[in-house]
């Protein structure tokens, strides 16, 4: 049990900083922020807590509660993506995870997903933001057909419009 747990923990621990940096780098902050995990109990770690720490670029050490709404979301997505890299499931379904993000951050998430999605790792993302869905390969449009009182679907492939 210890070995299985530490195997997962170490893998994610090594991944988290790189993922967080990928999501937080920008022209102004080419290095991005910093993120890491820490164990509260080293003997039997699966009995105790794992702490997650994330510091946006140029922001001082502060606990997660002090981060803004958008900063917390970016930190959360980095953690989810890092966790996902261990025994990855074949697909990831995200429902409006971009609600608290400004345009710049939405764009970073869209780029990250675009770069990491492939035949072995599929993303299905529900979003209200064109800044995100304009980067998808296909759109599944849901609308309400009032006359029959039902949801209906229209699918559109975006790749045919790629430059």
């Amino acid at each position, binding site marked *: 049990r210890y070995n299985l*747990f530490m*195997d*997962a*923990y170490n893998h*994610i621990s090594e991944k988290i900083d790189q993922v967080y940096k990928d999501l937080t780098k920008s022209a102004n902050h080419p290095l991005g922020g910093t993120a890491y995990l820490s164990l*509260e109990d080293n003997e039997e770690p*699966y009995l*105790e*807590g*794992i*702490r*997650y720490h994330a510091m946006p670029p140029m922001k001082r050490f502060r606990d*997660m509660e002090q*981060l803004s709404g958008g900063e*917390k*979301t970016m930190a*959360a*997505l980095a*953690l*989810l993506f890092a*966790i*996902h890299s*261990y*025994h990855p*499931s*074949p*697909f*990831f*379904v*995200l*429902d409006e*995870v971009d609600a*608290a993000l400004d345009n710049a951050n939405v764009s970073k998430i869209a780029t990250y997903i*675009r770069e990491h*999605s492939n035949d*072995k790792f*599929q*993303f*299905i*993302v*529900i*979003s209200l933001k064109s800044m995100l*869905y304009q980067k*998808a*390969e*296909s*759109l*599944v*449009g*849901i*609308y*309400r057909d009032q006359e*029959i*009182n*039902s*949801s*209906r*679907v229209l*699918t559109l492939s975006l*790749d045919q419009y790629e430059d």
Partner: protein
Amino acid sequence: GRIIRLELDNFKSYKGHQVIGPFHNFSCVIGPNGAGKSNLMDAISFVLGVNSMQLRSQNLKDFIYRGGAMHDDQEAEGLSQRETRRKAHVKIVYQEDGGREIHFLRSVNSRGQSEYKINDKVVLWTAYNAALEKENILIRARNFLVFQGDVEHVASQSPKDLTLLIEHIS
């Protein structure tokens, strides 16, 4: 592997039989408020066997499509309509890395009972779950599903929750 398409049958706001797809490596689900986008995610969670405690309804039979403008108005609807709508199902058409298709189906009837089928053959939940785990779809961990409103809590979750999550995927 990947999801090729979904087939919904009277599931939540989706009346009748509807095919949704094809899905690509990066697909976005879009549409106005209340259209049925999160219901689609509920469909995916449902067919993968996610515990109904995690879904927006505690009661599986709430997932069966209900038309009509008034609560409990179904006495007013014709009996044939009632018959067609007392069960619902969701099917995932999934493609393994090798190219082979597997159909996973879960249905629910008006008594809230579920049935599981792989490629049209009824199976027990244990076999169904095992087939999913073989594809690295680990329902207990649920780490590949992020429900509406949940993402910010991932960052501020208590240390014990995070430990639990990592335990489940290891």
